[in-house]
């Protein structure tokens, strides 16, 4: 049997492993050593490094409010597994949690309790408003509920009634990108959706609730461009 020998690509893992061994022995010298160090070291800022680690190890709070909580529970299960992103450790204490997922309707009586829980969480902390009830009160828009924006800061709103686990997963990834410091703007370019921006003309500026729920208006020259 003929043995075939080939030179490995210098960036091959096995080559670098041998180089690392040589470096530890002190056999690597001069220009080769400099090149090796150059390949091994990455420079970054402290902020970026901290943001990277924060975004990849979020502990959500064990906190469910209503039917959305069932969908929230399923994001830790096998199908959309947030353990892939280091988010899986649901913490039972607000002191240990970084993220509050408001999953359901917030009543007038519950709002001070949630605010207290949020205040008890240690900085840095984030909050996701999940579902229609929590963001805009949805079908329960009456005397008994409050929207979550009114009493605490919310980082990401996930629409839906209830949102599918995939939708919450998307919200979580948006929050992760936000923590990492580069929110994925430019999605219109990626989805070939340039020209679908919401355009508001002054006569459509409305303040009261009775005007209905239509909030996207075709019009102006930019739409459909």
């Amino acid at each position, binding site marked *: 049997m003929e043995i075939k020998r080939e030179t490995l690509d210098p960036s091959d893992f096995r080559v670098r492993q041998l180089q690392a061994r040589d470096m530890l022995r002190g056999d690597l010298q001069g220009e080769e050593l400099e090149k090796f160090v150059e390949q091994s070291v990455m420079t970054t800022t402290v902020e970026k490094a901290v943001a990277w680690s924060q975004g990849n190890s979020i502990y959500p709070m064990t906190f469910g409010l209503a039917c959305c909580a069932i969908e929230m529970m399923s994001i830790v299960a096998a199908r959309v597994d947030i353990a892939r992103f280091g988010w899986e450790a649901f913490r039972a204490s607000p002191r240990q949690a970084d993220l509050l997922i408001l999953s359901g309707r917030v009543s007038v009586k519950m709002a001070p309790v949630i605010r207290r829980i949020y205040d008890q969480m240690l900085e840095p902390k984030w909050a996701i408003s999940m579902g229609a009830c929590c963001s805009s009160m949805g079908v329960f828009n009456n*005397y008994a509920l409050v929207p979550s924006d009114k009493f605490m800061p919310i980082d990401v709103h996930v629409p839906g009634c209830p949102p599918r686990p995939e939708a919450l997963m998307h919200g979580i990834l948006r929050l992760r990108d936000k923590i990492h410091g580069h929110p994925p703007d430019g999605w219109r370019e990626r989805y070939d959706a340039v020209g679908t921006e919401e355009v508001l003309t002054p006569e459509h500026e409305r303040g009261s609730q009775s005007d209905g729920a239509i909030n996207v208006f075709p019009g102006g020259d930019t739409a459909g461009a």
Partner: protein
Amino acid sequence: MPDATGLELTAHELRESDADSILGTEFRRHRAVLLVSPQHVPAVLKHLYGKGYTFLASLHGVDYYPEEPRLGVLYELMDMHEVDRISVKARVSTQDPRIPTVTPLFPGADFPEREVYDMFGVVFEGHPDMRRILMPEDFEGFPQRRDFPVGGEPVLFTYNEETGYGKYQ
């Protein structure tokens, strides 16, 4: 369910013990209802209890706006042996919404009575703990009354992000 005759017989029995207690009877859709004056509710329920209606299946309030007296309190009683039901209805006005409690007879009426108080403002006299049960303690008004505004908030969308109630500061 007592039939129409049975309902009249029950009403007659109750009128014999106190002539003012029964204001009338209703028998519609196989449902027997005794219309009772509010101050006689405990006595009527005690009499029915003695007849076998030992289970208070439900206690709830109704707002019959614009009829007067506006508010109604309904007691749904059940005979667990005969599987027989009878309803007792008492009407109170919004000016003087008072009715004696039935908690000594049916301890399970405690929370339903508090809920009727919370939602309709009917005060159950003699109740051990007449507080709101669902709404916050400092809530003003009785939300299930017909003249209570539905309320709610203008929903924050992108178009009213600045002019609406605004972002959290």
